[in-house]
């Protein structure tokens, strides 16, 4: 049997449950005490009435009894005990005395010495007992009835206990009940919380939760509006970089193409040299603008997409592009996972930029006599290894920064690894640079750890 999970101590459910339980306990105990006090007063009244009634009833009976009694030779009265029908313990005892305080008659459990000598009528307390004195026969005969106060206390305490003990049962029941009620009432809030958590980094669609309490619904609507504004802002930024890329690429392409035509058509000489220099600069400008836009896009977020992509297929297209452009030649050795094995939430365009940058870096900076080894594992690790000398830890740390380049004569913007790192971070992964490459004594390896779709992992 699976027990329901206890709510967190910081949760609203926990606070309300504990608060309700404490409040219920305090109120219940206060009510019990107040009831006990009232009850005790009422018990006192009833018991006093009974004590008074006993004294008033005994007085005429005692008078008749005394009239019928023979006096002893000395003429002094002798206290006689009222015969008992059956031995028993008396809650109320009494004693009948004359005006001089001499006992004439008493109940069998009474102890004359414990009775007060004061014969004035009325109630009084003494030695843990309650007394009531009644006088009659013109102030010549006095009856004093007595009762142990402990008896009354015991009765009051029993009544109070009867009021308190249900709390032991009611308190856990009320905690469970309040907790269940709160859990049910807060279930839309919990669902909303889970939906927000599931939004993750790439999903910026409004939550649109329903059934929320009015206090939370306002906050939820505000969150949805905030998400919408954020999504619009990010979309605007992405559109800007995409449009910038398009608007920049065409004039650069036009300038480069015209210059290349000029280089072909010009005769050898200083003007041709100038045209060739312009062509080189235009190529550099093209490369730099492309990398800057890639970096801007990567740092502007958007590393994740709502739908998972098969990275193996995307990588195939990237490799096809590199090979068809003649960049890669036959230097690339690839290990690809089976189709559908690496489903990832990373944006496919972002992954393509990441892969292209790492492979181009390896082709540019690795030794040409060794292949560039490209691999993608089902765990979402994309690695590119190239041959070359071992880099120092300082160099490894430095080359990841924008505009920093290793000790190389190869051209480059110094932005490739910064772009890759920004994309990996935006997607919730990270980049690791190794030199020497894993399992080798030399070379360089870049590993991008990318998020793999959870459902795919579960299936595996």
């Amino acid at each position, binding site marked *: 049997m699976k027990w329901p999970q206890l709510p967190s101590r910081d949760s609203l459910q926990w606070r309300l449950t504990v608060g309700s339980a404490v409040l219920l306990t305090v109120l219940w105990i206060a009510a019990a005490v107040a009831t006990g006090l009232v009850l005790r007063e009422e018990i006192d009244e009833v018991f006093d009435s009974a004590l008074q009634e006993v004294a008033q009833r005994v007085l005429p009976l005692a008078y008749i009894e005394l009239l019928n009694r023979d006096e002893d030779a000395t003429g002094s009265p002798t206290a006689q005990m009222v015969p008992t029908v059956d031995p028993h313990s008396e809650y109320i005892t009494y004693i009948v005395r004359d005006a001089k305080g001499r006992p004439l008659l008493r109940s069998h459990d009474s102890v004359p010495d414990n009775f007060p000598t004061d014969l004035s009528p009325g109630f009084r307390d003494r030695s843990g007992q309650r007394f009531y004195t009644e006088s009659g026969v013109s102030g010549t005969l006095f009856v004093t009835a007595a009762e142990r106060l402990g008896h009354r206390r015991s009765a009051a305490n029993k009544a109070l206990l009867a009021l308190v003990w249900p709390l032991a049962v009611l308190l856990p029941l009320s905690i469970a009940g309040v907790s269940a009620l709160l859990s049910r009432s807060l279930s839309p809030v919990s669902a909303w919380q889970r939906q927000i958590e599931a939004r993750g980094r790439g999903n910026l669609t409004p939550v649109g939760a329903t059934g929320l309490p009015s206090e939370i619904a306002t906050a939820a609507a505000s969150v949805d509006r905030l998400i919408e504004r954020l999504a619009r802002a990010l979309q605007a930024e992405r559109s800007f970089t*995409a449009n910038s*890329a*398009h*608007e920049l*690429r*065409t*004039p*650069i*392409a*036009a*300038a*480069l*193409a*015209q210059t*290349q*035509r000029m280089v*072909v058509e010009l005769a050898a000489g200083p003007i041709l040299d100038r045209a060739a220099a312009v062509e080189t600069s*235009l190529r550099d400008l*093209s490369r730099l603008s*492309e990398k800057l836009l890639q970096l801007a896009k990567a740092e502007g977020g958007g590393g994740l997409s709502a739908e998972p992509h098969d990275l193996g297929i*995307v990588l195939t*297209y*990237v490799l096809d*592009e590199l090979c*068809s*452009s*003649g960049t890669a030649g036959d230097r690339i050795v690839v290990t690809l996972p089976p189709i559908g094995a690496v489903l990832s939430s990373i944006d*496919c*365009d972002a*992954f*393509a*930029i990441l892969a292209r940058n790492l492979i181009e870096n390896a082709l540019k900076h690795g030794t040409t006599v060794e292949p560039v080894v490209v691999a993608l594992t089902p765990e979402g690790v994309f690695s590119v290894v190239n041959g070359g000398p071992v880099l120092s830890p300082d160099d490894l740390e430095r080359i990841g920064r924008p505009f920093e380049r290793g000790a190389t004569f190869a051209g480059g913007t110094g932005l490739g690894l910064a772009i890759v790192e920004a994309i990996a971070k935006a997607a919730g992964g990270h980049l690791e640079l190794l030199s020497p490459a894993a399992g080798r004594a030399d070379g360089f390896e870049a590993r991008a750890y990318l998020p793999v779709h959870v459902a795919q992992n579960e299936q595996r």
Partner: protein
Amino acid sequence: MRILLVEDDPILGMAVRDQIAADGHTVDWMKRLEEASDSVRTVDYELILLDLMLPDGRGIDFLRTLRLSGDTTPIMVLTALDQISDRISGLNAGADDYLVKPFDLAELSARIGAVARRYGGNPNPLFEVGDLTIDKAARTVHRGGRAVALTAREWSLLEAFMARPYALLSKAQIEERLYSFDAEVESNTIEVFVGRLRRKLGQDVIETVRGLGYRLGRGKDGDHRRP
């Protein structure tokens, strides 16, 4: 080859057109999709170079429409849309190649050749007929082991024959392949170029079918091979 270039940027379009023409191909340059649609209805192009962002629509829609209509003309996309998703969309829509701006004109020429060879059913750039060895990728011709220099127009004419080695090509078909819409063609131009090719490559390299046109000959040994 007769190539249709669809590009709205005048400076880039001019350079691309000149490059293709310098390679010996015939180019019709259209700046709008509407003009391009009219052109493909009129002429059987051997290759279309297509920009994707045009003033009157998206090139990808033009591409899809062509493929849906059963048109199998090779299409190479030339675009500033550099994302891999754009590339995948373009190739899935039926593009044969996808080249992102800015590009090297030399790379464009090489890819045009590769696409043409792929569509010609023979990706191998070497073509042999008689004592001639023709490298379509390097655009060189060797006759009996010696290199023969051809002008761009002569090369284009030879390419037209190599594309359909046994087939008869009418004079009109050859003119259509060699000249763009705006070119003025003299009545005896084709005969002049055929004559020049025969002088450089051998009299029997091109056969005349009287009243109908020309076709690639079988060479001295009556055989030609496509390795």
